[in-house]
């Protein structure tokens, strides 16, 4: 029986440094490792002893693509520790900022990172000659997302305006209102995006996922909710069949294991030891009822009101979320009232707080313990990609037999394509991913 080792030294078009190792005997997978060799940066440790006000600025630097997610999970957790509530205006502004990040991150992934796999290109830039309209549409959609973050946060990467208790300054109305015309254009562009990605040729591949996402009674989840767990199965669910776990219970229900081939940690459900899926595919299916009207119609039209276990179709879910994010942003922009004060004050007290928010790539959990002097005693961060890593490996194991007759280069490429569907963020997961394929 032929033995093969296939190694993808550098996973491309993903955020951060990882690889993939596959060992095959015939079409049997002997070993599969998503290797994360991104050097660890020890954020939890370097936060210790810092004033809690530093936390949103420092944790933002875990990831240049989703800094807002880190800022959001950290301020919510710290506010809980301090017992400080935020005003409804601040809450809306935070959602608006999060819309900006989903847009910037999703548009980047859909157009520049993931679409090339379906259309047979090495990069989004290479696509520009054959698909000039699409590429410039994607770039413009992304640009307006970045402009939104800039208007609210001062700059698009590592925005500087997020504070414990609110914002340093509420944007003036004119700073936000001028975005409205472009956002109207973006809603249509996002609808086009859904139709375009839904027309791609998807491999016939499906998994029985345990899907995990925040769920909320009245809105599409971003900043708050319970942790919803939906076991794959037929029929429409919309979160109704989902098990609900309070965020405070997260650490008792999910566990991170440290594995040797990775500087990331693998998450599993406590009890069953089963890996699970976070991110747009899970989020849309657990929450499709709370999507904006246009996005909800599209979700129904393309079958996301039922269980969809095809990871390759995540690009369509991500595009549907783009429609939602632009529509919700438009709604907030159109009725914007500056928060006064921009930030609620608080007194230091010793305590602990935890929070989960929905980063573009999925659920992001933070927990902090602070002392009476306002310093961080302990920090714990569980990023979406480390939660997905176990599931990615399990999916690769199931995917390889479908493509095992291919030559090494094609097989490696097919595996990489699958990995990219989860939009892994490796910088986040180190404390987090390498695709090498060994055919034994």
């Amino acid at each position, binding site marked *: 029986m032929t033995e093969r080792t296939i190694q993808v030294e550098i996973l*491309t078009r993903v*955020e951060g440094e990882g690889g993939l190792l596959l060992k095959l005997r015939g079409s049997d997978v002997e070993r599969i490792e998503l290797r994360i060799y991104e050097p660890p940066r020890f954020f939890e440790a370097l936060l210790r002893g810092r004033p809690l006000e530093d936390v949103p600025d420092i944790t933002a630097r875990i990831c240049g693509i989703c800094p807002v997610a880190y800022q959001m999970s950290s301020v919510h957790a710290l506010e809980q520790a301090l017992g400080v509530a935020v005003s409804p205006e601040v809450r809306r502004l935070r959602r608006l900022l999060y819309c900006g990040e989903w847009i910037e991150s999703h548009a980047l992934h859909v157009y520049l990172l993931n679409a090339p796999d379906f259309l047979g290109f090495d990069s989004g830039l290479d696509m520009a000659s054959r698909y000039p309209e699409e590429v410039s549409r994607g770039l413009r959609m992304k640009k307006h997302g970045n402009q939104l973050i800039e208007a609210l946060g001062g700059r698009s*990467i590592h925005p500087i305006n997020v504070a414990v208790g609110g914002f340093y300054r509420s944007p003036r109305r004119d700073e936000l209102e001028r975005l409205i015309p472009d956002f109207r254009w973006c809603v249509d562009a996002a609808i086009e995006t859904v139709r375009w990605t839904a027309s791609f040729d998807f491999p016939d591949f499906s998994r029985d996922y345990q899907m995990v996402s925040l769920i909320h009674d009245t809105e599409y989840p971003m900043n708050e909710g319970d942790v919803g767990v939906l076991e794959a199965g037929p029929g429409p669910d919309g979160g109704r069949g989902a098990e609900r776990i309070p965020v405070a219970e997260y650490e008792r229900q999910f566990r991170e294991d440290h594995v040797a081939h990775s*500087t990331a940690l693998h998450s599993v459900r406590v009890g069953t030891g089963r890996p699970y899926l976070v991110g747009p595919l899970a989020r849309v299916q657990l929450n499709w009822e709370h999507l904006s009207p246009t996005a909800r119609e599209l979700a129904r039209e393309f079958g996301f009101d039922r269980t969809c276990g095809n990871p390759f179709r995540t690009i369509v879910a991500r595009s549907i979320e783009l429609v939602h994010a632009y529509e919700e942003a438009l709604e907030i922009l159109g009725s914007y009232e500056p928060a006064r004060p921009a930030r609620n004050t608080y007194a230091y007290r010793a305590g602990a707080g935890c929070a989960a928010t929905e980063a573009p790539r999925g659920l992001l959990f933070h927990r902090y313990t602070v002392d009476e002097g306002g310093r961080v005693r302990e920090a714990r961060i569980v990023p979406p990609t480390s939660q997905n890593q176990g599931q990615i490996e399990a999916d690769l194991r199931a995917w390889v037999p479908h493509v095992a007759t291919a030559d090494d280069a094609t097989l490696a490429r097919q595996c990489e394509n699958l990995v990219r569907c989860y939009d892994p963020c490796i910088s986040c997961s180190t404390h987090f991913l390498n695709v090498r394929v060994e055919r034994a």
Partner: protein
Amino acid sequence: MKPKLAVFKFASCDGCQLSLLDAEDHLLAVAGALDIAFFPEATSRMRAGPYDVALVEGSITTAHDAERIRAVRRDAKCLITIGACATAGGIQSLKNWADHTDFIRAVYATPEYIATLATSTPIADHVHVDFELRGCPINQYQLIEVIQSLLAGRRPRTPSHSVCIDCKRRGTVCVLVARGEPCLGPVTQAGCGAICPAYDRGCYACFGPAAQANLAGLTARLASDGMRPGRIAQSLRTFNGYAPAFREESDRLADGRDRVDEVRR
């Protein structure tokens, strides 16, 4: 022939290289003028060196990376560091002051799997750097300016004055004088456009020390406003904390009544 560009990543958050993909209006023009030979975050096509320009993001934190940066240098005619991680060691250089084993234990349950150096050091500690771009993250327009000047064969121009001067230019009311907010703008290199004070907060020095910054003058002022030396030292020890000017001043302050360990605890 178009100049060959490569983008390399070491310990970092990807934010600085993302600045290139975020230059939406210039991206296709840049991609047309340059031969993007190695940029894994953007393209699956990877070609071997030598390269005309290497953009390097991130700091050196593993023995393997210390080797890798030498190979990058050998392959690059011009090596440009992008961002605070690459030019000063980044936020991860905070571990340079700490007990490394404790750091590993704080994050990983099974520390024996982790191979990392006890320090995070800037690229220039390892190899010759031709030009550096500051910032956490870098400013997109500065990056475009650097690429355009390389294409035109001239040396890139970036400012060396302080954030303070840019606030005056913008007409931002001084947060330090008017509101007593601690602000590192007077000692921080310009480049961001003086964003933070325009959002009613002090600058936290993400562009690193300005040339000839009067650090002792500023820290004395912050102390007279009531900030403890330990806290002042800590505020210098962030994204550019390991840059020599900030490192020396923070060590000087921490050696006083507030000891290094108190800062850390």
